[in-house]
């Protein structure tokens, strides 16, 4: 493999070699969320008509894992290479900023998708006996689900690249993850339908691009959602373009990687 594909393959192999920690661990976390919240809240939280809370929760958890892991992949790879100094092996090559962008972003998508599939399969196994779910786990509109998983993971992969270029230490990266990524994913409607929120917080949720990714992805499963999937696609698409433009620009000028 040559050019950007070599870098893409290296980035995929990098997380795959430590798959227990990069894929296995987030799958386990999501299963724990499902067991605890699903069990406690199943009879207490009303979301959509005809959709049980556990069934509602699963796509949210899947998408949350896709997004968080896409971000984790590009950001941790970049910040580690910078701190270890082995980024020099890339800086000395003729790879263009576009090559860097596509390799890092698409490998982040692969990691996000791998974890997302893992979460979907694992949660499906755990709720197998629960008759109330009766095959509602199968996405009714799989194309919508795929489109949102792909655009969402791409956006978080590109955002991870920006964070990785910006951060100079591991604690700066942890701060970005804990104070930006975590709140935005948790407040995006993974665990609840935003219709259950007070007016003010509904309005705030509409400013969070993560909400549209989760909502759009969930539309792919149930054919119903808080807002139209077309609106969600528009918001996610524009966000992806903006963040990609910033990432490509930073790579072009060698932000914090070329003196």
């Amino acid at each position, binding site marked *: *493999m*040559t*050019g950007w*594909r*070599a*870098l893409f*393959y*290296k980035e995929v*192999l*990098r997380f795959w*070699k*430590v798959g227990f920690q990069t894929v296995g661990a987030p799958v386990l976390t999501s299963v724990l969320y499902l067991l605890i919240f699903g069990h406690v809240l199943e009879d207490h939280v009303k979301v959509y008509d005809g959709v049980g809370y556990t069934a509602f929760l699963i796509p949210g958890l899947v998408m949350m894992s896709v997004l968080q892991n896409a971000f984790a992949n590009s950001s941790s790879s970049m910040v580690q*290479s910078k701190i*270890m*100094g*082995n980024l*020099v*092996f*890339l*800086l*000395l*090559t*003729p*790879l*263009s900023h576009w090559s860097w962008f596509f390799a890092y972003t698409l490998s982040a998508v692969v990691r996000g998708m791998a974890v997302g599939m893992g979460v979907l399969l694992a949660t499906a196994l755990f709720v197998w006996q629960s008759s109330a779910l009766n095959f509602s786990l199968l996405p009714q509109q799989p194309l919508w689900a795929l489109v949102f998983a792909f655009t969402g993971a791409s956006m978080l992969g590109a955002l991870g690249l920006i964070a990785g270029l910006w951060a100079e230490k591991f604690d700066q990266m942890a701060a970005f993850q804990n104070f930006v990524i975590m709140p935005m994913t948790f407040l995006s409607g993974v665990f609840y339908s935003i219709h259950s929120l007070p007016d003010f917080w509904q309005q705030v949720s509409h400013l969070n691009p993560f909400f549209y990714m989760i909502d759009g992805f969930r539309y792919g499963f149930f054919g119903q959602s808080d807002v139209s999937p077309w609106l969600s696609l528009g918001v996610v698409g524009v966000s992806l373009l903006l963040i990609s433009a910033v990432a490509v620009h930073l790579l072009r000028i060698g932000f914090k990687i*070329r*003196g």
Partner: protein
Amino acid sequence: MPAISFQSVSKTFQTARGPFQALDGVSFDIKQGEFFGLLGPNGAGKTTLISILAGLTKATSGSVSVMGIDVNTQAADARRVLGVVPQELVFDPFFNVREALQFQSGYFDVKNNDAWIDELLDSLGLSDKANHNMRQLSGGMKRRMLVAQALVHKPPVIVLDEPTAGVDVELRQTLWQFIAKLNKLGHTVLLTTHYLEEAEALCQRIAMLKNGKVVALDRTDELLKAASSNVLRFKLDAALPPALAAKARVTGRIVQLPAHDALEIERHLAVLREAGLNAEDVEIRKADLEDVFLDVMHANTPQETV
């Protein structure tokens, strides 16, 4: 067309304590096929100059080209003809030796490179480590791995920034034999090192940097000829008289003094005798590159008030 051309290269870093000029109008050419040494004390600007050449840092002013290709305006093309061995001992802990070399080949668009990778591993004594993770390699092996990674694309111009730091004597020999072989095959080599006997043995021409300026640039043999031709070397237990201390190169008990002729040697010994000191193991030898280096660096020290 020179292999490498530096034209009035200056670099100023902005630091917390104000601007720092690392390079000040550096200009020289390295011919194709040459084995060229870049010497200078720590902080002289050697690594900054190499970083600019490699596209890791941008020059504040001036221009640099490799095989006629501008490193700034045609960066990607310039990197294809350049193989750089970085000074820092860095490695990617996720991969084994062969994987790292295969990926590096891929970045340079080199397909099916296994034959050359095997040759590199063999020449650098790393064949039996091909499937070892990078973390399992000793410091010297990691250093040789840096050389292998720089050469995956058979670059016509090879830059080695302190390639033998931390490598034992025997492996240094192996490394130099290999680099000398590549040089014979037509590869241009630019070397920085603190082992001056290596530079003296290998380099046809040498540039010396100090405080960001070129303070000497000549053929190695001319530099040696121009220096004081002899060195008086002896062991001494006491402190050196001030008259000699200024000129001497002192390593523990060993004192080395430049001397042009027999008269100067006698004068040095007379100073010792008058001070009531007894020199042991006295010998006289030819000046080497280290003496030239110290001469040049000393001559270019601004007179500061103490």
